[in-house]
């Protein structure tokens, strides 16, 4: 013990200098080469800040594409999921409530067309994406709310589909913020 305690102390101090200090500074220095300097990517349209590129926003207005439900109401300073188990009766009732409310706002949509991502909460509560089907089922509502031709909105969704990586790996999805920014610019 005695012959170990001093080396252990000194080694720990040196590790603090090296891994809390130098390593952090190296990564911090690398961050300075980025346009946002590692502070976070902000989306700016016509000089106006619209939000964070990676972080999903709450959209509940009929004229916008809705984001997924969030257990933390899109609070990016306290993110989290619902942690509801798949068999929890209260949870299942909540999902049923979301389905019913979706159908009220989207009277042209049949129940079997609603994809589950639109009525379940994401893991982070900040999911920036919805599934492709999740975007398409909202098209009619948005076209009506904005007085746009349905085809026009459909085309817009198609343009904003993010393909899987190299078209081969992963999921196909639609970034809600980008799509809604574009939607606001569409006449």
């Amino acid at each position, binding site marked *: *013990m005695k012959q*170990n305690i001093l*080396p*252990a*102390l000194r*080694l*720990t101090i*040196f*590790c603090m200098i*090296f*891994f*809390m200090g130098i390593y*952090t500074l*190296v*990564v911090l220095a690398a961050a300075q080469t*980025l346009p946002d*300097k*590692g502070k*976070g990517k902000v989306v700016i349209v016509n000089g106006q*800040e619209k*939000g*964070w590129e*990676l*972080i999903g926003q*709450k959209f*509940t207005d009929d004229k*916008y594409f809705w984001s997924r439900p969030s257990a933390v109401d*899109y609070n*990016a300073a*306290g993110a*989290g*999921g*619902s*942690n*509801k*188990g*798949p*068999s*929890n*009766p209260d*949870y*299942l009732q909540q*999902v049923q409530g979301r*389905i019913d409310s979706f159908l009220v706002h989207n009277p042209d949509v049949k129940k*079997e067309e609603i*994809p*589950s991502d639109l009525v*379940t*909460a994401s*893991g*982070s509560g900040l999911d*920036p*994406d*919805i599934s492709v089907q*999740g975007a398409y089922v909202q098209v009619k509502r948005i076209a009506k709310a904005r007085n746009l031709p349905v085809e026009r909105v459909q085309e817009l969704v198609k343009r904003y589909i993010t393909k899987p*990586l190299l*078209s081969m790996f*992963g*999921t196909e999805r639609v970034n809600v*913020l980008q799509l809604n920014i574009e939607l606001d610019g569409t006449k």
Partner: protein
Amino acid sequence: MNTEIAGIILIYALTAVLAIPLGRYIGKVYEGHRTWPDLIFDPIDRIFYRFSGIDAKKELDWKQSLFALLTINLVWFILSMIILMNMGKLPLNTDGNPSMTADLAFNTTVSFISNTNLQHYSGETGVSYLGQLTLMLFQFISAAAGMAACAVVFTAMKERTTEKLGNFYVYFVRSCTRILLPLSIVVAVFLLFRGTPMNFEGKAHYVSMQGDTVQVSRGPAAAMVAIKQLGTNGGGFFGPNSAHPLENPDYLSNIVENGCILLIPIAMVFALGYVLKRKRFAWMVFGVMTVGFVLLLLPAVTQEMHGNPAITKMGIAQPMGSMEGKEVRFGPAASAYWAITTTVTSNGSVNSMHDSLTPLSSMAAMLGMMVNAFYGGVGVGFLNFYIFIIIAVFISGLMVGRTPELLGKKIEAKEMKIAAIIALLHPLLILAGTALSSWLYAHNSAAYAGWLNNPGHHGFSEMLYEYTSSSANNGSGFEGLGDNTPFWNISCGIVMLLARFLPIIGPVAIAGILARKKYIPESAGTLKTDISTFGMMVFAVIAIVAALSFFPALTLGPIAEYFGMR
């Protein structure tokens, strides 16, 4: 082929392809053979040794190695308690987060020095940036301590008779500087370029398109995320870990982060092959681990992609699969793959919420932690596997009527006793903990109503999962559990402490005792340990121990939930 399935095959293939050369490199690092990065690292390591007063040439026996390991961990424990209980007043606290209470600081300290990274706090509100950097320090050094213990066992397994098993401090420093540090820098910079923040600013805020003002937590995340993935740590910067879009921005970052989980655990197996010059033995170990991993992976991926049957009954579509607690950018296949990789190794980071997994997937995740040796944590994964090898050698020796020998060393009663104790410790800690908490809950459910986020069998699974994760030094959780209470903080802390150090002490002791014994050259009568028959034997031992220990508990939790939902 389905692009989601193709994605997870790609992640595994990339990991395995990189792990083989990395394993050879790690073998060289521990053997002290020349590698090209020596030019940079030799001077750095010399500064480490000189500053710490370590004689790098002096070899230690197994007891001295263990004393070195335990002493340095004691220093870390004290350091961490001091910082976590005072960080509210210390510098680098831009967001003004509070210091931890004693029980939470105890839990967090044990959690991080034991390489568990169970988090009963949330990163955004529970720690200052100094706290985060301290925890990041432990992510390096606790991983390196496990790897160093593993290196001691590797050295002991060589064909010779000796007391001297290399220098623990040297293995430790080399694991830090030559393996974890360079890989972390590469991964951290990569994540930066995908969008993970790295700064010391306080919360940002923006006004959303619907006019809400939203605050955004940020900080030095990229540096921490890299090492938490690589060192099988798993302690995330943000509360939801790698499900958080800033911690894991897109599918590409997910490939890299998920690959990092398995990279060093697989590489350690090939490092063993290099150190012992027994490639076939390493392939046997790798084969058994991979079979176990795939057997857990398949049900998880199918179940998650199939969707939640209770939601199917509501008549909506589940084109992706079960989506509660998952992110659209990863999808159910990559989420299930992550869930299994993170639980078979002792990583414990998550990219989806495990509490919302469908029953059989959550059972696969729990089984991964209950076995805790399919790849396993960096260093300690092989130590757990080593215990199963010892038991398998002993049983096969008895079955065919030969003296049980492992790599030329006779296994006798003393080693077998240690192995049996270690093999039984893990089920004991898990089941005793779960039994105690269930008893408390059952007898006074009103007082403990805050514990469970879900009723019935799933609620039981939340408690079972918490102790399984603690005892496996995993750190993931069914996060619905209201676990920041003195009961959970202290009981899980004790479980983590015992489950970290005893399973290191046991294998190192066995290996040290075996190393002292006379080396018996291989003969026609030797039980071959590098063939698939022996591999099957090891697998059978693992499966039987897991099934006998855990089947009853799993029946009450995920299995009952599964049948209840059909």
